[in-house]
């Protein structure tokens, strides 16, 4: 017996127990909900989402997936798996069809075809996998199982019976004589093709291409009672073959193998992810296998990007800005400040996405990365504005932070975006410093997007700033770089963008009267 269970989990114990798993709380803050949605949307039949809701807890489990993913980067293997999946999909459709249909011989044939597709899928897969060099524990284990299974008497016999029956049925040829309301059914006795005969007669007039007068008959899967009657009579003409078909269906009702079914579903986790990141690779964006550690808090990522935003930008054919970050030695906290709409939030999201995707054992955006395997990931993003209740909002902010700090450990990750915006600057500085103190104390990794420059002066922090083009401050670069927070006023540039500066306004106001009858060029 071969010991193989899952291509996704190294140990059977890690298998997610709760199939109705909810998406983690931080998903929408980090736009991970969008990312996972686009990854799984075309694979809904596999119900992959809760695999994406289950981060791994140990480094070796992540390695197990890295190995499988690296094997799948081999195009041949990837295509083999795709074709296997297509066949199993077709098989399922056939079974579903067999279930839905009414007439016995029709149901039986759909079932037979389903088994034929299954046998072919499994046989091809074992053949293809054997000819490849596989390096992952996952694939090696699975191949071992496949070899064991396909050599089993059960499978060998299934293949033989299926082939024989298919061949017998395909060889059947019969003739109908339709005259008024009678139908005569006989075996076919090499009568000549009359259409060809007629066509030959008129051959001499044939010049060029004529219109196609053939009528397209819609192919329905159901049978009507006449077809069923004819089929019954055909069965009488060939009694042995149809008896075999009956017996075959009884005997092989539960032909499907559990391990192979599970593999068919689980491998789609990798396929879905790889197909998704292919879109970005084609846009010349990099992905890498991050180094993962549970201990080392020195982390880095180069050329990273927000997967959700990049997806949107690629469909709009816009360019995508990549960012770097690193934390060394005692550095734990990244304080992000700078002009609005300069990519600060995107930077914070990217940081969170990278860590989450890494904990799923997936390749992550970037050229090169070392990331931390956290125990919990917390986010604190501004909730929807509620102007009516200022105090309520501040209170809510504080309650959420309190909750986070209560659950966070030194192994956690916290991402905060614009906290305490709904109070005075002085209050905000005071409260933020209080919160930061706790975080510094816990020595955990944190990204904090803020308009409070002061925070970057605290210990363990690093200041990163969103930047603009120096010559034209209204143009954002969306680059977030390591540099001291400079607190420059960008309000003017934003006003310029909306033509609300003095000069603009003067001109616009002067033109008010004339714009009604003079078109501006």
């Amino acid at each position, binding site marked *: 017996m071969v010991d193989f269970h899952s291509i996704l989990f190294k140990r059977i114990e890690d298998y997610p127990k709760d199939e109705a798993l909810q998406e983690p709380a931080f998903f929408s803050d980090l736009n991970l909900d969008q990312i996972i949605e686009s990854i799984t949307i075309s694979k809904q039949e596999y119900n992959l989402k809760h695999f994406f809701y289950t981060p791994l807890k140990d480094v070796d489990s992540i390695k197990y997936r890295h190995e499988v993913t690296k094997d799948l980067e081999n195009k041949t293997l990837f295509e083999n798996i795709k074709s296997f999946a297509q066949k199993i999909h077709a098989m399922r459709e056939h079974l579903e*069809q067999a279930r839905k*249909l009414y007439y016995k*011989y*029709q149901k039986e*044939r759909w079932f037979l*075809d389903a088994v034929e597709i299954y046998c072919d899928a499994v046989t091809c897969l074992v053949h293809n996998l054997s000819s490849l060099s596989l390096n992952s524990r996952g694939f090696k284990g699975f191949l071992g199982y496949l070899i064991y299974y396909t050599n089993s008497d059960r499978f060998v016999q299934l293949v033989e019976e299926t082939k024989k029956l298919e061949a017998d*049925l*395909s060889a*059947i*040829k*019969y*003739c*109908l*004589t*339709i*005259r*008024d*309301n*009678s*139908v*005569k*059914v*006989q*075996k*076919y*006795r090499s*009568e*000549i*093709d*009359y*259409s060809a*005969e*007629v*066509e030959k*007669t*008129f051959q*001499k*007039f*044939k*010049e*060029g291409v*004529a*219109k*196609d*007068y*053939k*009528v397209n*008959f819609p*192919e329905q*899967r159901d*049978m*009507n*009672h*006449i*077809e069923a*009657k004819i*089929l019954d009579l*055909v069965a*009488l*003409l060939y009694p042995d073959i149809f008896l075999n078909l009956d017996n075959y269906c009884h005997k092989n009702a539960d032909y499907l193998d559990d391990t192979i079914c599970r593999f068919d579903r689980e491998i789609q986790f990798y396929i879905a992810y790889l197909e998704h990141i292919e879109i970005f690779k084609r846009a010349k964006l990099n992905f890498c296998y991050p180094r993962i550690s549970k201990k080392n808090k020195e982390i880095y990522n180069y050329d990273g990007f927000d997967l959700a935003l990049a997806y949107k930008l690629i469909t709009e054919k816009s360019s995508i800005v990549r960012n770097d970050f690193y934390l060394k030695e005692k550095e734990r906290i990244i304080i992000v400040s700078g002009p609005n709409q300069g990519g600060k939030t995107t930077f914070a999201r990217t940081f969170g996405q990278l860590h989450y995707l890494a904990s799923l054992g997936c390749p992550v955006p970037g050229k090169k990365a070392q990331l931390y395997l956290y125990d919990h990931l917390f986010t604190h993003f501004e909730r929807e504005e509620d102007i009516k209740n200022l105090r309520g909002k501040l209170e809510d902010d504080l309650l959420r932070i309190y909750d986070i700090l209560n659950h966070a450990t030194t192994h956690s990750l916290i991402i905060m975006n614009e906290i305490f915006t709904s109070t005075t600057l002085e209050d905000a500085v005071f409260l933020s410093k209080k919160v930061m103190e706790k975080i510094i104390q816990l020595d955990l990794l944190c990204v904090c997007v803020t308009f409070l420059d002061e925070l970057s002066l605290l210990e363990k922090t690093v200041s990163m700033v969103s930047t603009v083009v120096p010559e034209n401050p209204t143009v954002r670069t969306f680059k977030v770089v390591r540099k001291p927070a400079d607190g420059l006023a960008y309000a003017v540039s934003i006003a310029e963008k909306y033509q609300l500066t003095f000069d603009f306004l003067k001109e616009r106001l002067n033109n008010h009267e004339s714009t009604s009858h003079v078109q501006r060029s």
Partner: protein
Amino acid sequence: MKALLMYKDRDFDLKQKLPLNEQTLSQDLELDTLFSAMALEDEFLYMVAKVAVLSILEDLDTILYRQSILKDCLKNSLVVKEIYAITMEAIEREKRIFFGYFSKYYPSSILSRSIEVLQMFVGLLKQLRKISDEHANKFESDGFKNFFSMLDRELGDEYFATIQIHLKELKFRNGALISAELGKGNKGAKYTLRLNENKKQHWVERLFTKKPPAYTFYISERDVTGAKILSELKDRGINLVANSLAQSCEHILSFFNMLRAELAFYIGCLNLYDQLAQKREPVSFPIPVDSSECTLSLKGLYDVCLALTKNEKIVGNDLNADNKFLAIITGANQGGKSTFLRSIGLAQLMMQCGMFVPAESYRSSTCDRLFTHYKREEDVTMTSGKLDEELSRMSFIIDHITPNSLLLLNESFSATNEREGSEIARQIMCALLEKRIRVFFVTHLYKFSHDFYLKNPKDIIFLRAERQPDGERTFKIIEGEPLQTSFGEDVYNLVFGAGN
């Protein structure tokens, strides 16, 4: 089956591309008058005439091939018109046979319509055969001889009999025999119509051969759905045969269409011939000469369009311009220069589609393209000045002209003063001469024509519209050196009265 009455080896393509300057040619040479005379208000004849005349034949064989067919037509015009009428009848009657009212999309209705159409076609094909049997010996041209022997060969009595057998068989009096296999889900598939041979066996034979197993069931009269399904099943079986029969109808129809289109050209020629004969204007079959030579000699050439619109007899011109690449035509205003130029263009086009020409004799090298460059009205689009406009048309011509082209210029480059116009003309003409491109140039540019004349060149002929000393125009074009005046004064006097 092909009619091959326009080309020895291919069909006449009604959709062929006409020259890019088709419109300009029609306008400058008044081709509409010619086409209308050929068409006698029949749109189809008009279209065929237009395509045939404008798709200039370069190859002498094809021109002569058509000439001899046209000669046959002139001799046997009634027979040719009868054949033409049969093609018209086939095309008209086919249009009137409809598919079943609601059942257009069923193979059975396609099949029964096709059977009806084929019956009708067979009748007309038999008529064609009969004409061929009776009149073929009166035709001498290769084209008609081949056509009739093709009818003979392809449409034998035996062939008609075979068709009849099929048309009868396809009514399925003995039931439709359809073979099938088991397709997806054991549903019947690959329905194929088979020949239902009802072999008459001797009773002894019938007694001793074991009957193959057969099962028959009946659909009860109340089972309306069942009856519908059964007829659909039959439809699946006859789908292919209905298709190939319908396609055969289409092919036979296109044979009739092709025959009609090819004959239409000759019918057009017959129409034109009749009108010119009524006016007692002479026509003759021209002698086309290979384009490697530069030949033009003609006698009694007149403008066919002018002849068709005027009641009086038209003055014909004679000319011998062999080895002359450039003809410079000068002389009196309203002296017939434009008419002469047009008559050359028309005759050339008529010769090069295989027609007769409006002349006592006409012998000319063929060209592969014909261009005209006439003085135009003031530019209506206001986008460019008049000289601009003229020169841009000239530039278009230069873009498309070939060494074997024929170019007719009528008062070109006159949109500026004479010195400049002459200089432009000189430069262009020198270039064309060097390329050995045949040009007829009607011009008032005295400096240009005089300078050329002084050089006494061998390859240029100078022609002049004749004017009697009293100012009387004869409308004759004669050889003569360019004069400094075009006798505009004569015209002035004509309009204002002399001495005013």
